[in-house]
């Protein structure tokens, strides 16, 4: 019998033991290959406008995936070899040479790896159609997708996994060299001393966590502060979480132990002491998982929040369906014709928005902070746009908005600049001196308005003036007249929008809602797909790690539960204690992860990285997280129970 066939027999004979490792490898291959296939998909290339940028996002994501898949396979390999230490020790005891054993382990791993890659690639080819369709749908394109095989993707997957599998195979080969015989035999019965509790650790951990959260709720003003705060939050939360798991949990469990009437009540004694016995080995894993889940949840929240809010964003960036500068010439007639020809999207409102472009006095000291910054940035340009209250109210009516403004004399209203968190108090009572050719006019801010009037452009400064003041100024400067149209069902105006853009009237500054909307849709769809995909994979994998860890424990707990059954513990009680212990292990990172996630989201909101209504994205991502963990929890309890009851 050759070594190779011995390895093959080992795999077939021990299939049940190998299954878990095999499945996790297949899982990794499926995930990776699916993702890579999308990157090389010609179907997607055809249907996406911003395919190049998407390709680079996918490339970055697949690099993260490689790192992740490598860690995941390495982890399951470690779990798997731990179970086999005794077997390896036995071979050695029987007189097999180390080199031979090493080779055998190497072949085994290689064989399984090859099997997993083949199975995984086949499976993901079946799944890739589904994923391509999902992605295209998220990006707002509905096309029928056929089965495609990309050789490039195939080559990429094979290459990555050959590397990973070679490394783990070498790891397997090294196993026999890395341990003494005696260690191999005693892999299962390590007598760990009970962890000591240091009160200092508990206190420092709590202080760090409280401190981290406290900082997260502090307002930030400058970029330097943001960076400093992020570093502080990260440092204190990471250390704090570790100390929490390492000491505070031990402390609580010990307290539970001292509470004798509940500790010595039925099966509690088993559950509590088991958890305490294992907590040292679990602390690091739980910390890592809690932090990883918090980050992943936040990433998913960012992705989903963009997807949920991009329509609102698009409406803010481009309030009207079509906007251009009216010059009253032939070009304009052409545009009008195209817009009115589109019978599917009848014009609901047509409006002329005149505005005056002026500058402010550099010596003005009473400027609101935002305008002051713009002033410094554009000292020469006429960056201030003035419109009359009448126009503003007309726009509001045309766009079905409720916001109305009435101004008199030298009262002025600022339209809230986008990407700021300015509130009325930033403008209240401030004044600005407007520079006109013949005079200077000082106006006082009395309102802050939400509704945006024209396409967003930087610098973003719109000031609404009273009608009489505006008409007085109009005599001194020639206004720029913007022509705006609002049409029915503007989200689907692709044809008209393209036609208009193809005219190439650059000087008219033509912009359409559809273009902004589509760009937002694609980038949000891409984000939600990439982040959602990676996020789900990460969450699934963290759950899987807990699952593996619990199974390892189940195997070493087998003897303990056998003793318990002999001294008269009912099967139901065994199930109860397993359920409780597993719940504890799953719930800890879940709660800490969700709590950290909320904190991170709060920080992101504070620095304007995300905005709008985020309750749905947060609830969705947390919902997914809980669902995944619930699935793993049920699986864990079942498998655990089966293992210890064999």
């Amino acid at each position, binding site marked *: 019998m050759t070594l190779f066939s011995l390895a093959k027999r080992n795999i077939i004979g021990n299939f049940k033991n190998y299954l878990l490792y095999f499945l996790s490898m297949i899982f990794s291959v499926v995930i990776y290959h699916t993702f890579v296939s999308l990157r090389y998909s010609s179907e997607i290339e055809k249907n996406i406008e911003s395919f190049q940028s998407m390709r680079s996002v996918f490339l970055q994501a697949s690099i993260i995936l490689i790192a992740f898949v490598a860690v995941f396979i390495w982890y399951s390999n470690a779990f798997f070899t731990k179970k086999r230490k005794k077997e390896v020790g036995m071979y050695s005891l029987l007189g097999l040479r180390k080199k031979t054993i090493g080779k055998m382990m190497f072949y085994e791993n290689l064989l399984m790896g090859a099997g997993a890659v083949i199975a995984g690639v086949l499976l993901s080819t079946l799944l890739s159609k589904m994923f391509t369709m999902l992605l295209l749908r998220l990006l707002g394109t509905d096309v029928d997708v056929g089965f495609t095989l990309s050789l490039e993707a195939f080559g990429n997957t094979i290459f990555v996994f050959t590397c990973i599998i070679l490394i783990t195979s070498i790891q397997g080969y090294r196993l026999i060299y890395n341990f003494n015989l005696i260690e191999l035999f005693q892999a299962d*019965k390590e*007598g760990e*001393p*009970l962890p000591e509790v240091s009160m200092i650790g508990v206190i420092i951990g709590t202080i760090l966590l409280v401190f981290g959260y406290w900082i997260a709720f502090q307002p930030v003003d400058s970029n330097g502060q943001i960076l400093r705060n992020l570093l502080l939050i990260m440092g204190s939360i990471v250390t704090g979480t570790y100390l929490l798991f390492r000491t505070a949990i031990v402390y609580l469990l010990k307290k539970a132990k001292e509470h*004798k*009437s509940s*500790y*010595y*009540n*039925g*099966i*509690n*004694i*088993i559950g509590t*002491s*088991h958890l*305490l*016995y294992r907590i040292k080995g679990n602390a690091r894993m739980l910390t890592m998982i809690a932090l990883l889940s918090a980050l992943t949840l936040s990433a998913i929240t960012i992705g989903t929040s963009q997807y949920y809010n991009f329509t609102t964003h698009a409406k803010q960036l481009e309030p009207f369906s079509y906007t251009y500068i009216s010059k009253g010439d032939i070009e304009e007639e052409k545009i009008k014709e195209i817009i009115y020809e589109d019978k599917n999207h009848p014009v609901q409102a047509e409006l002329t928005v005149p505005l005056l472009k002026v500058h402010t006095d550099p010596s003005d000291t009473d400027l609101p902070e935002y305008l002051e910054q713009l002033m410094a940035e554009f000292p020469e340009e006429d960056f201030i746009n003035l419109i009359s209250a009448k126009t503003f109210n007309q726009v509001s009516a045309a766009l079905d908005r409720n916001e109305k403004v009435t101004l008199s004399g030298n009262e002025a209203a600022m339209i809230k600049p986008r990407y700021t968190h300015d509130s009325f108090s930033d403008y209240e009572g401030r004044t600005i001196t407007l520079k006109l050719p013949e005079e200077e006019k000082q106006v006082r801010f009395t309102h802050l308005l939400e509704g945006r009037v024209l396409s967003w452009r930087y610098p973003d400064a719109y000031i609404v003036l009273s009608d009489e003041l505006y008409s007085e100024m109009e005599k001194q400067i020639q206004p720029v007249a913007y022509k705006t149209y609002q049409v029915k069902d503007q989200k689907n105006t692709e044809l008209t929008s393209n036609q208009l853009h193809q005219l190439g009237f650059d000087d008219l500054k033509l912009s359409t809602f559809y273009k902004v909307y589509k760009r937002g849709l694609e980038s949000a769809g891409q984000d939600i797909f990439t982040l959602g995909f990676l996020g789900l994979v990460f969450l699934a994998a963290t759950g899987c790690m807990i699952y593996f860890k619990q199974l390892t424990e189940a195997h070493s707990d087998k003897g*303990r539960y056998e*003793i*318990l*059954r*002999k*001294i*008269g*513990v*009912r*099967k*139901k*009680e065994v199930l109860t204690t397993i359920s409780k212990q597993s719940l504890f292990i799953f719930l800890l990172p879940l709660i800490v992860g969700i709590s950290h996630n909320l904190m991170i989201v709060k920080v992101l909101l504070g620095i304007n990285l995300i905005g709008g209504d985020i309750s749905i994205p947060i609830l969705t991502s947390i919902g997914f997280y809980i669902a995944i963990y619930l699935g793993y929890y049920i699986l864990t309890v079942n498998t655990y129970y089966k293992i210890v009851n064999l």
Partner: protein
Amino acid sequence: MKMVVDVKSVKKVYGAKGNVFTALDGIDLSVMEGEFIGIMGPSGAGKSTLLNVIATIDQPTSGDIFIDGTSILTMNEDQLASFRRDKLGFLFQDYNLLDTLSVKENIVLPLALAKVNVKELERRVDDIADTFGIRPILEKYPYQISGGQKQRTAASRAIITNPRLLLADEPTGALDSKSATDLLESLKELNEHRQATVFMVTHDAFAASYCKRVLFIKDGKIFTEIVKGTSPRKEFFNKVLDVLSVLGGGTSDTV
């Protein structure tokens, strides 16, 4: 005197068609309250199988077993678990202590499972700690104590519920002679002063000599039985050795 265990023509057959092995072949025996009974026999004679079926861990193929007048074969899994907890105490060669619990916690485990209140529980530990001389090690963990101490801990756990029957499977098997003697003395004292009924499987003639009655099993059947009566232990020990030599094929550990 009340009968604690009544085994009626119990058979136990392992394996399926063609490859059958009969471990117990129609065993009849009864154990009275306050007895200290030993089971001996060569390897493979069915000693451990007999203990396991009485312990309700294994089911006989045919026959019936009554403990305290109740048939244990009609009980379901949960009833058996409660039965084991309330009526039986176990002592195994490999101690079967939980390494996640301290000595004291190991001992009170059966009481905790039966939800005995803390006060009563502490009282019973206190009561038993001196009988087995484990008071100094109560707060230690199994990996910190010696084999003899482990077995005394296991014995304490086995009798803390005042079981109707104490089942011991080769309890001295892994102990040195000093520890073995200590344990056997303790068991004897339990039997004599607390009227505990002890059912012990052993292949060690020295251990068997502490029993009041010893049954010999061969090929799944009861071969013979000797009773200590009033004879001194040394003499009984020699009798056991005599039977063993007739029985053959087995153990001949000397003292």
